């Protein structure tokens, strides 16, 4: 670690300034959501205007003609559902790659990496035609399956780096003591790797919640997700800035919470696996 006496004071100020600069647009959104419509529309923004929950009330109270709950529930279903599926599939796969290295395990990792080179739009059309054929258009479970496969490579990649931190000696002594695979997993691997797995789950949740391209094409009135709802909401309610800001804030809230919760492990995992 750095020697504290060498820290040049202004660096702290610069860091804070950068932080503020990057948060400013989002802070403006949160603030505008709390203003009344006339105050929200002024330019430059009226920072000191009285606060009101009117924007939120109208957003949730269906004062806009469409209830925001179905899309929010859809997003939650697709994100949570796909995250659970990812964990079920990725934990065994990452375990296989991390603890019992397969021959050519680097090739396997490269295969996972190469899926990052595929343009999503390439898959869009075949998936759309498939959904049309099977009647799965506007069905949230199709999105959940798609998000699962989109996040699977990243999840395996991240979790492998977390699982690789489990000391081999402990596993070996557990095996010597006659512990089976399941017992080893539950008693030895899980406690060490749990925070990393949790962070991976939160990252998958964030990516699924934010996805727009597939959701836009494959869903409609029934299964539309929150980002799709937001783009439509802007078209119909764009003039009511406070209301739209309230909508954007509500839709950003789950991923922000997930991001903060995953913060430490997220940076560590991403720099080990270095994804996105």
């Amino acid at each position: 670690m750095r020697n504290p006496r060498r820290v040049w004071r202004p660096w702290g100020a610069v860091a804070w300034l950068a932080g503020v600069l990057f948060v400013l647009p989002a802070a403006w959104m949160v603030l505008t959501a709390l203003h009344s419509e006339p105050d929200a529309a002024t330019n430059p923004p009226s920072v000191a205007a009285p606060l009101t929950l009117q924007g939120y009330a109208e957003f949730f109270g269906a004062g806009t003609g469409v209830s925001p709950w179905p899309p929010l529930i859809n997003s939650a279903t697709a994100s949570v559902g796909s995250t659970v599926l990812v964990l079920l599939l990725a934990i065994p796969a990452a375990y296989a790659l991390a603890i019992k290295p397969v021959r050519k395990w680097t090739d396997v990792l490269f295969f996972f990496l190469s899926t990052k080179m595929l343009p999503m739009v390439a898959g869009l059309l075949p998936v759309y035609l498939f959904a049309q054929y099977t009647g799965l258009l506007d069905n949230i479970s199709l999105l959940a399956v798609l998000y699962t496969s989109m996040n699977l490579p990243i999840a395996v990649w991240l979790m492998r780096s977390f699982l690789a931190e489990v000391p081999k000696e402990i596993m070996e002594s557990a095996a010597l003591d006659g512990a089976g695979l399941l017992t080893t997993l539950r008693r030895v691997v899980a406690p060490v790797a749990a925070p990393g797995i949790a962070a991976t789950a939160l990252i998958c949740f964030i990516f699924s919640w934010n996805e727009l391209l597939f959701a836009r094409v494959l869903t409609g009135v029934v299964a539309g997700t929150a980002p799709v709802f937001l783009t439509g909401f802007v078209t119909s309610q764009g003039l009511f800035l406070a209301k739209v800001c309230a909508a954007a804030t509500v839709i950003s809230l789950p991923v922000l919470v997930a991001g903060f919760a995953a913060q430490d492990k997220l940076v560590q995992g991403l720099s080990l696996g270095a994804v996105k």
Partner: protein
Amino acid sequence: MTSTSTTEPLRAKTRSVPRHARGRRRGRAEAGRLAALLLSPTFAVLALVIVYPLVSALRDSLFSSGEQLDENGFVVQGDQFVGLRNFADIVRGAAATRFWNAFGNTTFFMLTTVAMETVIGMAMALVMHHALRGRGVVRASVLVPWAVPTAVSALLWRWMFASDGVINAIIGHQVLWTTEGWHAKLAVIVADVWKTAPFVGLLTLAGLQIIPGDLYEAARVDGAGSWRQFWQITLPLVKPALLVAVLFRILDALRMFDLPFVLIGNQKRSAETLSMLAWDEASNLHYGPAAAYATLLFFYVVVVAFLFVKLLGADVIGEARGRRAVGRRAVGRRAEDAPAAPPREEVVPA
């Protein structure tokens, strides 16, 4: 040591080796089977949901769809095999200008955003690394742009770039940012850098934090200034982490879709990327050309990634191992009560 004294234990050891190795081989085969079993569901899902659509898109790119007249003047329904005609049309046919424009935009966005994100991200990482107080808060706050959905961030920037928006108020000019022209490109770049530079910064910061502090100590003793310390210690040692972060940013930037789509809009020449072009063709039911655009984009991404890895030597997987080795060596040095001179092979960039 003399040979006589070690012969006996050595022979005992060699005798036991084959039995041991046999057991290990059997264990290895078992482990291999188990690993294959554990990996197969993941591969099955990826093959079904990712590989199948891609192969299908490749196939589509060789067909034309919809109604056509055959050589006898009969109307033919359904897919017609046209070979590489879709590609030929794109590269030098009627659609060529639009394709090359989108190709140029994609490349331009990739080069500018990745360059700016790398520089800004690196600077932020250095600043955060130096500033001890409140580092956690600053780190959390720069996470905000990354976590916010692109649909929301594109919306935020559309308001700020509106004709009566904040940006125009600050610069004191009336610029129509989100209409056609260079300013549309600039708006996309600013919004993208805002969204992803902090994250490059966080990844670089993680790389900075594992550089052993005694390297700097030693460099100071040797009289190296902070500029030299940066070029000869910080940059070479943070390079693996930085290169991997940049590689992933390049992959994402080449496939950019949501941001220009929401910020500027569909079918705008100035900001249309290859992904948007493919999307637009697909939504107009031109499946063949859409698939051809997507295929070309895929090959472009592969070529760029390959060149990047080859030219700059980004060690994507060995990265974690390499850095651990550096850490171990540093620990070893500390244990030996490190000499003042930094080990040359690490400090001097190759």
